[in-house]
């Protein structure tokens, strides 16, 4: 049931409302870190345990020793889920595809993310119509000549926070705002002889206006509390640009401002992280 988002599509969100699929989504809710969740993995080599998926470190990995590579998540009770986020992975370079399924009984499985082989190791965010299930299963399969299952640093499965408004003028997609050191070298005679590049990550400024103060308090504040401690996924326009996704964090407090009449709020924050 993997969903291809298209422009104009409407998706229901956790707040009970329905929003266009083009609205920005934040993926911070995560079943894997809930105390009642039980993870089960195929055999892993030392240092590549499944628990590494729950620490939000994109540099500690879960990696199955062999194919089939499967991780099963038992959330303990039925949960609403509309996204899967994957970061710090080697799906592309290790030639693995990823598939996500859900189940209510751990016996009959239905796809919510069809087998997908990305074109790079950039963060991924799969967004789909919400499903309700207790069990989820992530399966990696070899693509082409891949022999070693890919490593995955961060895996989020949960419900997105949908921003009520789209982002337009002034926003730079996180994948396009790179933080890069470029160091050229030229010789005494002026010949160009080399260049080094250091990619330090990506960043994005998100400015949200005309938010209802009630909506902010009921929905956004929980994200703000999460962002003090942990990173999150961000997709600025899921339907048109589903691969323009970042996995990042916010280094400063996110503080809203009341704006104009009618009990409206605005808020801005900076995301720094990885997106390529």
């Amino acid at each position: 049931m993997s969903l291809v988002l298209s422009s104009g599509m409407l998706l229901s969100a956790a707040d009970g409302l329905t929003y266009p699929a083009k609205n920005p989504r934040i993926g911070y809710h995560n079943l894997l870190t809930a105390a009642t969740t039980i993870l089960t993995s195929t055999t892993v080599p030392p240092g590549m345990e499944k628990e590494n998926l729950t620490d939000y470190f994109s540099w500690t990995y879960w990696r199955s020793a062999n194919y089939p590579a499967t991780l099963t998540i038992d959330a303990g009770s039925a949960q609403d889920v509309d996204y899967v986020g994957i970061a710090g992975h080697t799906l592309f370079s290790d030639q693995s595809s990823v598939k996500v399924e859900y189940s209510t009984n751990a016996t009959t499985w239905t796809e919510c993310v069809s087998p997908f082989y990305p074109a790079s190791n950039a963060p991924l965010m799969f967004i789909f119509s919400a499903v309700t299930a207790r069990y989820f299963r992530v399966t990696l399969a070899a693509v082409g000549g891949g022999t070693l299952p890919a490593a995955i640093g961060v895996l989020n499965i949960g419900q997105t926070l949908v921003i009520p408004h789209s982002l337009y003028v002034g926003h730079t997609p996180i994948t396009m705002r790179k933080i890069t050191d470029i160091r050229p070298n030229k010789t005494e005679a002026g010949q160009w002889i080399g260049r080094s590049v250091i990619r330090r990550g990506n960043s994005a400024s998100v400015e949200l206006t005309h938010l209802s103060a009630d909506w902010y308090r009921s929905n956004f504040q929980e994200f703000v509390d999460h962002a003090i401690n942990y990173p999150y996924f961000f997709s600025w326009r899921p339907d048109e640009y589903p691969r323009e996704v970042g996995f990042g964090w916010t280094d400063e407090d996110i503080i809203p401002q009341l704006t104009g009449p009618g009990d409206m709020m605005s808020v801005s924050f900076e995301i720094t992280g990885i997106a390529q």
Partner: protein
Amino acid sequence: MSDESTLGREPITIVELDQDFCTREYGLSPCTAAIGVTGSFKCYNTRKTCQDSANYSVDSHGFTNSLTISFTQPRANLQAAPGEIGTLFPTLIDVSSRPSEINIEDGLGTRASVTITLRDHPYHDRYVDPYWQTRGIDAINLGTFWSKWLRRNPYYQGRAIRIRDGYIGQLLGDMRTRHYVIENIEGPNASGEIRITAKDPLKMTDGDRAVAPLPSSGSLLADINAAAVSATLAPTGIGSTYPASGTARVGEELVTFARSGDVLTLVRGQGNTTAEDQEAGSTVQVCLVYQDEAIADALYDLLVGYTDIPATSLPKTDWDETALTWLASFNLTGVITQPTSVKKILTELLQTSMSYMWWDEVAQEVKWDAIHPPLQTPQELNEDQHLIQNSIAFTAKPEDRVSQVWVYFAPILQTKDLDKPSNYKRLRVYADTDAESVQEYGQKSIRIIYARFFDETNDGEVIALAARTLARNRDTPRIAAFSLDAKDRAIMPGDVVELITRDLIDENGYPESQQYQIIRRDETEAGHLVQYVALPYTFLYRYAYVMPDGSADYDGDPPDRAGYISQNDGTMINDDDAYRII
């Protein structure tokens, strides 16, 4: 695959620290540790946390430890080459180096050191704690990575640390790797930073950690007079720590001895010393004796026998070849009569043989070479293809010019005053009077060498020592400093290069290439830019191998490095300068 020559290469630095890590499993035979019996929690497989030290088991530290912890700079694309991904802590802030520097004159040069700055952070211990799944604690919220690591691993000094400078996508084994040993770890400080200081292994020759000979613990049981030919060592049984025979120092007197148990049979007043009455309690110090010892053997024995530098880092075969080619007759004779810094002895040996030693941080070897003409055509470095813009500078070093070499040799006493002319039987003075004339430099510049390991039979070596010193230092050297792109970073200390720059010209202003020897290499921007310092590699006169019997007569244009015997008047048949034997 990415490397130095890849356009848009992405440099990455990986620091690898080797931590002692016990090979046993807690409570599993032969480990007898048990919770509630030997401790209240499981160990962390480190010596500090061990609860059964009798069965603690690690490889000998220094170069073969068990658990490697890796750090790198935080960056967008951390992944290494396919299949090589592991736990790579993205907490590296900076690696600053003070590279080693070859010192042609002093022999041992300066030691390399690096300072590695890391960011401390919360950590769940999974990589460093083999029992994290059963420990039942919330490790990520208890302490920080480094505060816990230092508590569990206080014995880090001397352990290996490596710095790999490579490129994103490059295999670890293909990265340029520098090897050091940990000297100190400071922090975490108020900013949450850790600072690791590491040195090259030749630091192990310093006097505070390596001396030769080793101190002897025995002393005279009773007074002996000047005529005594036997003595007994105290305390009882100490004789077993002495060799069966050898040379020893008692007071200011040298003796040779043969030992049986604690009893020594003595030959008194050796090495020009005088047999004297000696008091009970006087230390009987075994001496280190070189008797016609090949220079390469002496250096090797000193480093293997008296330092913690592993023999695998000493390429003795290469050293023997160097000795055979350039120092074949440089055999040494001398007695070291009391525990002396290995560094000091090494320096004396190297100065005496006009050779030099340095740590090759990439090859992980102690290199040793003698001053000699270049053996192969050096790599050319020019302004068009190699030398980085605005990086070239030349500095004159008039204080390094030498016009006279005084060599004191054949010491009278080995027990004292080895740096005083009055304690030497012989002095040879070699001067370049042309260089001292008013038409040239107009003043003398004297270098004095105390060759304590040369005896009366070493006149030939003294001539070579003086001749090579003058040949190398006759003119004021101009030290070159320049930078190269990482594509040329394979050039290492000790290598000879041919510089072509607008600053090196002949008398008419035409470009004139000159040979320089790299004495310092500093990769100031890892994987991107390398700074070099080089000394002129000039040899006065014409040096070559003597041509074999049957060769064609000298014609003024001999084969490369082909030397011919001159005429009686010291010139060649066409009035060229004669070759010299050094």
